[in-house]
């Protein structure tokens, strides 16, 4: 029923949407409706990694010690007014902002403002077993993935407004981690109240933060309602109310946009953007986002253990075809894992040519003049970085046939797919990565390091000492220019060794009604409505 409905609506949409403009419904409520793709898993960003959840909760409810400037990716003060790093790069001292108020809700009335205790409470939960809330969650996925427990040795409250982090080893991506949406600052006073009432689970379900909006209510799979935080420390949001309307169906979300039941909505399907771009009452915001779609070879399996074979395959595929057919021109071709917007991106990298002759030559040199047979695994789900892996696999299959390589396309249900990938049963796979923060380490380490080959996010199963040394040196260097140099070397080396072929950095899209202002895509994190305004 659902699929018939969606199918029919999309056809009807296509035919009629350009016909005439609807009459805007007038509401007396000063509020904004954001139509989200799904329900949040939790109201505490410490516990999640999914983009949908982060968009729904993070920037509205919470603040972080540091923020990322969306224009240039630089770190700017958030709840920490200033900070100092010791010369050995092991201690970070933060001065906490004065006069920051927590949310006053029906389940919690704060009696004091933000202090260093709250910061200690927030990060202590992730680190210390004796913390009352440490055991209430089984994992802290983001912090586990950056190995925070091994990294942070201790937290010391120096004075009520000053806190110090001591690290076990220098790590120049530490500040970036603190600026991610996952590092939201919670209230220690609220935590103490929950401990007293023995309702520990509420910490992650009934949120209290310092963010621009406060929690009002949540109906699962229907909506989340936020009110403006009247004592927000930055400029007050214009909107008195923010409603996250949960509309999982893509077609329905578009229909709701057209009838102005939604003010803003993320639209992942590129084909539908063309439809909306014809309407004058909508604005489409696009931004190259911190992601990469790539084709990884399982370097533990012959013949992909040979550099020449991998290079040959990389020369054999026609990326401009893929850009058109899979991404509809809404992505940038990639020649590094890092998107060009990253500060560590190497502008001198050679652009990957399409050269079947060279590919054939390389194959002969590697000892496969007649080609060989291989599998291409295509992921079964749509992601921003790869909206249609099957189609991409078909294009690559055709390209490979030109150089005598016979490719078979393989796909499984998503969970099985990931399990089999982890077990290394693939020859090659079309998959991708979305970064959690602006730091280049977030691309280069999880995708190609030896540690990641063990933990499973390195789909090439590639383990190379040179590469690991380069990215390790980079995180241990506090000087930006030196870090950049190391990362550029790492990118060059990756391009030479070609354990994977970067294909595209896809753009992220969001559609909003023209009367909504001050909302834009943040390439480094969740959507933010603090500056949003609505004209009637």
């Amino acid at each position, binding site marked *: 029923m659902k699929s018939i409905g969606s199918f029919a609506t999309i056809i009807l949409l296509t035919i009629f949407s350009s016909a005439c403009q609807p009459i805007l*419904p007038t509401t007396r409520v000063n509020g904004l409706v954001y139509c989200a793709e799904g329900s949040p898993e939790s109201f505490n960003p410490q516990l999640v990694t999914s983009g949908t959840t982060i968009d729904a909760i993070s920037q509205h409810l919470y603040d972080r010690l540091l923020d990322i400037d969306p224009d240039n990716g630089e770190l700017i003060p958030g709840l920490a007014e200033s900070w100092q790093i010791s010369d050995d790069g092991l201690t970070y001292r933060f001065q906490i902002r004065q006069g920051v108020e927590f949310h006053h809700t029906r389940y919690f009335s704060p009696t004091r403002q933000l202090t260093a205790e709250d910061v200690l409470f927030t990060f202590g939960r992730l680190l210390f077993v004796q913390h009352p809330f440490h055991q209430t969650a089984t994992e802290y996925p983001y912090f586990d993935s950056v190995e925070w427990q091994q990294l942070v040795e201790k937290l010391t409250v120096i004075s009520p407004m000053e806190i110090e982090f001591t690290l076990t080893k220098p790590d120049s991506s530490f500040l970036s981690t603190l600026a991610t949406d996952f590092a939201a600052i919670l209230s220690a006073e609220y935590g103490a109240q929950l401990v007293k009432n023995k309702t520990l689970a509420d910490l992650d379900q009934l949120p209290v933060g310092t963010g621009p909006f406060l929690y009002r209510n949540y109906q699962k799979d229907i909506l989340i309602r936020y009110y403006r935080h009247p004592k927000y420390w930055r400029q007050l949001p214009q909107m008195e109310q923010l409603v996250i309307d949960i509309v999982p169906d893509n077609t329905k979300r578009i*229909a709701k946009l057209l009838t102005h039941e939604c003010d803003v909505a993320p639209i992942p399907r590129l084909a539908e953007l063309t439809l909306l771009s014809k309407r004058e009452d909508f604005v489409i915001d696009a931004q190259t986002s911190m992601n990469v779609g790539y084709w990884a070879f399982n370097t533990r399996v012959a013949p992909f253990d040979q550099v020449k074979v991998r290079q040959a395959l990389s020369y054999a595929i026609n990326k401009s075809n893929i850009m058109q057919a899979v991404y509809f021109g809404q992505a940038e071709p990639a020649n590094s894992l890092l998107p060009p917007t990253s500060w560590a991106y190497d502008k001198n990298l050679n652009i990957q040519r399409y050269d079947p002759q060279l590919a054939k030559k390389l194959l002969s040199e590697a000892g496969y003049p007649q080609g060989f047979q291989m599998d291409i695994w295509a992921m079964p789900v749509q992601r921003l970085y790869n909206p249609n892996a099957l189609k991409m696999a078909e294009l690559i299959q055709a390209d490979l046939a030109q150089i005598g390589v016979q490719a078979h396309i393989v796909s499984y249900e998503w969970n099985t797919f990931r399990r089999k990938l982890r077990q290394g049963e693939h020859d090659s796979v079309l998959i991708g990565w979305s970064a959690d923060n602006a730091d280049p380490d977030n691309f280069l380490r999880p995708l190609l390091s030896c540690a990641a080959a063990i933990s499973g996010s390195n789909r090439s199963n590639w383990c190379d000492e040179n590469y690991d040394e380069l990215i390790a040196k980079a995180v241990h260097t506090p000087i930006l220019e030196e870090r950049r140099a190391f990362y550029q070397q790492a990118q060059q080396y990756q391009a030479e060794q070609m354990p994977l072929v970067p294909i595209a950095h896809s753009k992220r899209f969001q559609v909003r009604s023209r009367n909504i202002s001050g909302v834009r895509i943040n390439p480094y994190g969740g959507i933010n409505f603090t500056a949003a305004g609505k004209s009637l």
Partner: protein
Amino acid sequence: MIFHYLMRRMFLLSFVFVALTIFAFSLGYLFPGDVLSNFTGLRNISPADEIVLRQQLGLDQGYWQQYIYFNQRILDGNWALSFSSQQNVLDEILNVMPATLELASYALLLSLLIGVPFGIIAAVRKDKWLDKLISGFALVGYSIPTFWWALLLIMVFSLTLGWLPTSGRLSVLYEIPRLSGFMLPDILGSDAPYRNEALFDAIRHLLLPSLVLATYPTTVMIRFTRESMLDVLEQNYIKTARAKGLTRLQVLYKHGLRNALLPVTRQVGLQFSTLITLAMITEVIFSWPGIGRWLIDSIYQRNFPAIQGGVLVVSSLVIAVNMFTEILHTLLNPLARK
């Protein structure tokens, strides 16, 4: 006499309910997965809990004993938990039920308000162009697939004209505290500053779904009222009344209508089950948070306790309404009591 009749009905009703609960109970075994999970809604039950639960549910005893325990839990309101939300299924059903009842009752009302008068007009103007027009429309309405009709209306009134919203019961910006679960009374009972706007908005949300849902029963009402009216108009007492000099309108009102509408009351009950089925489709298309959408979501999610509870409640409701209208029909119609 009437007492006997009611007793007979009640006896029949209890049989139907026994059959229904046996069916619902056996679903716990028929569904795939663990029987204990299906009956309790709990997942990943620890071995220690399992022993206690098995005893509570009587799973160590015969089926008959288990069935009795099952009925006790149903009567105590101690229903299984939903797999997806881990809440009592009964609470969830009570939460979504009012939305469906509200929609269905407006649709039924609409079908009576339109169907009956048009049926009468068609009968009175038999074989004239008005009758042909009405009967033609009724046939079209009768044959239209609901989901297609719903999409057509959405396309015209929402997407193209932009007059009416496509989904939900109320714009999400209006915050109306839940009193009864019925939207219009809740809005009227609230003291929100935007009460009038919210009421207007709720009516705009109601229009399309209730129109879609009313379409099929309306056409049935038209056809049924027309047939029934034609039957009555053939009767000798009508001719007698006319011969006695009563005007056409008087005959129609005093002798025709009362007799012709009797079978229609019965039809209302029969239409109810169709209405609930159609409500499921309508709710899915209009994202109406009622029991139909809830049940279909539960089926998608393989939420067995929810399906079990939902089936039990919806079937009971349909049976109860059918029985009620039949009794009502009997009370109104002395002939049927014999």
